């Protein structure tokens, strides 16, 4: 395959960036998108140019590092995949592909396609935990049975990989899907109920302080989420928040 890549190049967080165009050849349809980027970088390096910086690590869709906005969509045109799992067979020979970083005020660009998502970490610091110390004698794991449906729903919410595709996709750069996934996981489990009020208030406050946009229920996040986290979680977040506000 032959491709034209329009890649966002930006030296660092301070300088302005722009789209650069690169032609690339001999791409196999069996390559993953990042392997195609490896080929580009190998070529740029040999030519004495600066290779394109992008975040990646596990390359099997679970670490949440990769963060490319490809042809106008987070993680590209395929569904339920991260960029590293996107394969070149999803593109046509001769196609022009736009590659941009995940964009949001809360995700400042570090270099090229690498962005700073520490705002997500800070939201988790605000309440993404259950306050239980490590000891060899917490109660037995089976002492509180949990309804299978609830356990499964909690798991589904917990599969969020924190990649930020929801924010990148949302026209409002809202992080509600991300926050709701964590809040939901704990809200559905008896262990998480004790701190539920403080957790949702603190996490939402941190989310607002970071400067994420608000949710207008377009549902784009749910479609682009590589783990298929459902909008139901945002509804649950709203419910939990309203409950917490009334309580506190």
């Amino acid at each position, binding site marked *: 395959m032959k491709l034209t890549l329009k890649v966002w190049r930006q030296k660092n967080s301070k300088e302005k960036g722009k789209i650069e165009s690169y032609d690339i050849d001999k791409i196999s349809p069996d390559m993953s998108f990042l392997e195609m980027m490896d080929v580009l970088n190998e070529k740029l390096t040999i030519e004495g140019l600066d290779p394109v910086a992008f975040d990646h690590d596990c390359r099997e869709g679970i670490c949440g590092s990769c963060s490319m906005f490809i042809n106008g969509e987070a993680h590209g045109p395929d569904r339920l995949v991260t960029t590293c799992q996107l394969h070149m067979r999803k593109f046509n020979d001769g196609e022009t592909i736009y590659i941009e970083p995940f964009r949001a005020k809360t995700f400042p660009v570090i270099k090229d396609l690498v962005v700073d998502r520490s705002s997500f970490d800070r939201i988790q610091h605000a309440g993404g935990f259950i306050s239980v110390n490590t000891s060899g004698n917490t109660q037995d794991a089976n002492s509180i049975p949990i309804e299978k449906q609830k356990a499964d729903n909690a798991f589904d919410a917990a599969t969020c990989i924190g990649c930020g595709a929801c924010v990148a996709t949302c026209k409002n750069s809202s992080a509600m899907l991300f926050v709701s996934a964590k809040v939901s996981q704990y809200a559905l489990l008896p262990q998480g109920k004790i701190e539920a009020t403080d957790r949702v208030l603190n996490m939402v406050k941190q989310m*607002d302080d970071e400067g994420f946009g608000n949710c*207008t229920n377009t549902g784009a996040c749910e479609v682009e989420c590589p783990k298929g986290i459902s909008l139901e979680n945002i*509804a649950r977040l709203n419910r939990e928040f309203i409950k917490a506000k009334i309580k506190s």
Partner: protein
Amino acid sequence: MSKVIESSILRKVSMALSGIFLIIFLLQHFIINISSVFSEATFNQLSHFMGTNFIVQFIAQPILILGVLFHFIMGFVLNFQNRNARVEKYVKYKGSANASWISRNMIITGAVVLSFLGLHFYDFWIPEINHKYIEFLPEDPNRYYTELTHKFEDLIKVILYTISFGFLSLHLLHGFSSSFQSLGVNNKFTSTIKLIGKIYAIGIPFGFCFIAIFHYLNN
């Protein structure tokens, strides 16, 4: 206004609540208006009641005006804030790939409805206020139907009216079910809510247009 309601979720909840309030108001408005198609007397009776009842005029009406103002101002504030959450825009952004045009453009459909409301105020509300509370003209319980039909004599007005309700329909198509999601309702009833939302969002604006066209043709 964003200072008053500090949390993002409370802001969207307030949008949902004011939206649902307006949906209920619109339904009431529609029931009165549609009566004009069937019976001049019923329409006059209902309108007279609404126009002269103390509770409606001095309690419900201000609440309604506040509700409308709140919904619009908050809508614009939110839109402004949300736009600011992304400073550098995408070179290529394919919004249609993952969300409907309607859901992404509530601000546009809302703005069109707002401009219609301006016209509606100018056309109906200001003359009413003038009639009742400024010039203190005598109340004729039978004046409403004539005034109504009179308003739909002008073809251009009927067309504008129809277009505006088209946009209102679009606004409601997302807004109805969206407000329930904002309030945290997403469960086994959601598909029913979405269905009712669709029927409402298409039916009510269509009904309003029907009334307008009916009276235009009758003239």
